[in-house]
């Protein structure tokens, strides 16, 4: 169920990016898609009732020196969280660039409507 909702969010973002005529709304649509994918990555590592994947002394078996099995089976997968952090930084960069291009385009054309910004064709 959460995966279906996440996919729905992705589709809403895609619809917004493809259909809307306003440049800023297109950017918003792309960011909604980005967040849907980030949410999907987080859900991959999620466990109901799981614990934070931080090892301290109580998680190490004193006899063998190994990490105890119950910790491994109950902790949340930390890798998707690291991926999402990276993905957020990248999307921040592209968002900043997109918005700055929008602002410059508004300065040149005086409108955000992409149907009026059409000097290139062919």
């Amino acid at each position, binding site marked *: 169920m959460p995966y279906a909702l996440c996919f729905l969010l*992705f589709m809403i973002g*895609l619809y917004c*990016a493809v259909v809307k005529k306003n*440049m800023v709304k*297109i950017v918003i649509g*792309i960011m909604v*898609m*980005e967040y849907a*994918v980030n949410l*999907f*990555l987080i859900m*991959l590592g999620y466990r109901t009732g799981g614990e934070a994947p931080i090892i301290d002394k109580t998680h190490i078996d004193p006899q063998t020196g190994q990490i105890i099995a119950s910790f491994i089976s109950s902790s949340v997968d930390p*890798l*998707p969280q690291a*991926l999402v952090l*990276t*993905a957020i930084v*990248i999307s921040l*960069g*592209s968002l900043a*660039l*997109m918005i700055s*291009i*929008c602002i*410059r*385009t508004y300065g*040149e*054309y005086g409108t955000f409507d992409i149907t009026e*910004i*059409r*000097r*290139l064709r*062919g």
Partner: protein
Amino acid sequence: MSIPLPVFIAIPLIAAFLLPIFGKKRKAIATFLANLVTILLFVLAISSIGRTDVYEVGKWPIPLGINLVLDGLSSLLLLAISVVSSAAMLFSTRYMEQYTAKSKYLSLFLLMVAGMNGVVLSGDIFNLFVFLEIASLASYALVGFGCGPEELEASFKYMVLGTIASILILFGVGLVYGNTGTLNMAYISKTIQASGLNAGLAFALGLFITGFGLKAALVPFHAWLPDAHPSAPAPISAMLSGILIKTLGIYALARVVFNVFGVSVEVGWLLVVLGILSMVAGAFLAIGQWDLKRLLAYSSISQIGYVILGIGLGATLIAKGANVAWASLAILGGLFHLVNHAVYKSLLFLTSGSVEMSTGTRQMREMGGLAERMPVTRAACTVASASIVGVPPFAGFWSKLILVIAAVQAHLYWVAAIIVFVSLCTLIMYLKVQRYVFLGELPESLQGIKEHGGSMAVAMVFLACLCALMGLLLLVPSLKHNILDPAVGVLIEGLGYSTRIISM
């Protein structure tokens, strides 16, 4: 002595962040340093030919850590990237004097090179995505570098489609991680071999083909390219058309399809169909263009079709279990065409930049008779046109010949016919370029123009010599054995990639 692999990424990355320090006052130093970096990368790429190596970042063994892999395919692409970037950088030395903020331009340029080198070397699928985004973001900014209305429009269009492509790729990476539990390409491939493709992985493969296809501007996804490539400054058009779409699109697609997921007949046919569509549609659209750079951009779509056709044909033949010799011939044709196209298309864009700088226009109707005024540009453009059309001694002829032979051997005579037919269309469009730009009457408004020599001429002559000599890469056995064959071997080997990387 073998240098560690991260050097290929670290040198341009460090230089990219150092150059803005020089600012406006000392931009000569910045330009010199940037040229030094690209030439150094060229030397390093030559020295790494024939070497296969795996580097574990931070000494973490895979699959815990990230690894960088240098094999035949990577070193072929590294070589192509460094050739095109050295020539484009040399050309920008003089060409970019028209623009302000040159050191920022150089910094973005090197960032793009760092991203592409990273894509080519990465052995980890998420790391590949990160480097792909570094190169893409730098290229979005470079397309809009002129900040005129048309540049901004093209940049926005490119950026929207490029970002959607990146999101699809990230989604695919997530699905792959969810289904295999690893991000290392070798281990993903091992898991897929053990358990086979399930629905989630097949969907991920579809997302990868769409995402990388958008980056490579294959035909249903090509809408951004004819706007973005002409709007960029000429050296950047050369970089984008020459190498960026190949590294981010074709290389990544080939690596994922052949080495990670493994080839199947359906995927092979999909690639062949995409390739033929791109070839035919790109060629037809190019003939009608009157804007010089737009014509070249459409021609890039058509030429990318040849590359993907060769690779797709190889995939189909491997999946059918046909004779490996014919499959490797098809892939050899595709990859050799990739390298050739990198050289001659970047040369054509550089000559278009030289023409535009002298005449101040890109409309072919307003030009004519430039042959006498711009002899070097004219000579370079003729060599490149002859090469792209496939006139025998030049490079383009050999790669197209191999593709035709491979298609005939696979008993796909109609594919061979289409290849020859598209070559004919290419001939028409480049005769048009020669006729309207260089021959005919010189219009009165262009009487006083003169050619810009110096570093621009050096860059063009360098690439023109390569165009004429590229055939040797195929004809001299030792060069073929060291440069092309290992690259073909990597794709033919397919899923054997995983055992090779894991045991290294």
